[in-house]
């Protein structure tokens, strides 16, 4: 049957990358959506140069939210905090390689919502 889901989505859903937890993450980020049960837990460890060295995720949810979170973990590698803070919705949607209809954007952006909450907490903890 014709599926709107891209090969990228199907692949990342079936084989999530960087699944699990990190020993000592610097940034921990969560987003729960009670309306559909999507849950994303994201962990980021920074290297000595301040760039993202390791990313891991766990979660439960629809294909789009899980594929998006898996893609996230790959695309965040090597980025600086400022890059993470500047990440846009359109960039994240672009990684999915498929047109995401308006009523599914919330699924696709779930890891970004988590990241933004995690970054805010990180800033607060760092006193800035």
């Amino acid at each position, binding site marked *: 049957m014709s599926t709107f889901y891209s090969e990228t989505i199907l692949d990342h859903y079936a084989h999530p990358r960087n699944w699990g937890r990190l020993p000592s993450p610097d940034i921990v980020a969560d987003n729960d959506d009670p309306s*559909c049960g999507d849950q994303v837990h994201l962990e980021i460890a920074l290297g000595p140069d301040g760039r993202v060295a390791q990313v891991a995720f766990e979660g439960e949810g629809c*294909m789009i939210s899980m594929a998006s979170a898996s893609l996230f973990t790959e695309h965040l590698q090597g980025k600086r905090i400022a890059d993470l803070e500047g990440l846009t919705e359109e960039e994240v949607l672009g990684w999915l390689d498929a047109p995401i209809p308006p009523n599914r954007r919330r699924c696709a952006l779930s890891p970004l919502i988590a990241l933004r909450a995690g970054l805010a907490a990180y800033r607060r903890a760092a006193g800035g």
Partner: protein
Amino acid sequence: MDTARIRADFPALSCTVHSHPLVFLDSAASSQKPLPVLEAMERVYREYYANVHRGIYAFSEEATLAYENARDRVASFINARGREEIVFTRNTTEAINLVAYTWGRANIRPGDRILLTEMEHHSNIVPWQLLAQEKGAQLVYLPITDDGFLRMDLLDSLLDGQVKLVAVTMMSNVLGTINPVREIVQKAHGAGAVVLVDAAQAVPHMPVDVQDPDCDFLAFSGHKMCGPTGIGVLYGKEALLEAMPPFLGGGDMIRKVEWESATWNRLPWKFEAGTPAFVEGIGLGAAVDYLSGIGMEAIAAHERGLTAYAMERLSVLPGLSVIGPPAHQRGGVVAFTFRGIHPHDIAHMLDMEGIAVRAGHHCAQPLHRRLGLTATVRASFYLYNTAEEVDRLAQTLERVGETLGR
């Protein structure tokens, strides 16, 4: 019942979605609209539109007459004793809130209990939570069985004299369970409690008579029964409505206004402040005529047949489990889970094939938690659905399972 003829009355049903003929299986959320309803409303706007209850001129008199005439037809549709008992609201939610804010505030005291059931829609939970928080009252829930029936064996012990109100759905929007409202009303009245019935899923789909069961309040929405959005109904017994303080203040609901105080209009207008949604009310009148013309018994029988067929077709799909009672004990909604695929993904794939279903918690999060689920897919049926549409749902689901199942 001639389904082909009925379908011809609903312009939306001949639409194409993603290059497929539309299969609309989400009428429990909101139904499609037949031509007589669309035409009745357009006629008001084109031929006699003017504000009701005020103007001393022909347009206003005609609009007022049509609006109040629609109220009378709604009253007889549910066998109310008269127009005094029919308050127009925006929808079921507003009707329930009206009772919570007026009857509830005047009658619920600290320590009182409000008895709900585990299968209620959020609209029959949250208004009572707000009231209970304000008054220091307590909410109690009549549990359900794992197969989606009310635990009627526990009702007597829960009706302990502290319960002042029982608010119960006539038919669950998720499980499809049709509840024994007559028995609940009898027992609640025996225990001195007032009963509100959420009939949002019942009035559109089966004959409903407010005098049997003898409920005190009953709420439903126009948009689920072929009528427009923005119009709903609160039925209330005249003596109860008469004793209740008003809901919203403003024009139309008053008799006399002084600088410091006001007196209230007669029923039902006491509860209808401001310019009402009278065009929508007239549309609802047309919807009631349309449904009555076909016959509520015939509609209920048609849906029973479709539901039984859908349960039979879906239950043979490996990994599909339907929640709720067997076909002969439910109305026209079938909610299910399928092979661990997230309901949003299923609904999305079905949509790509032109099939509209609902996915999520259907405004019943506590019920889903009780069942150990976060979300389900729900197909719901109405007078215009056909066995061929059920076939398309089953066939497409089978292919969704092959593509996405794990």
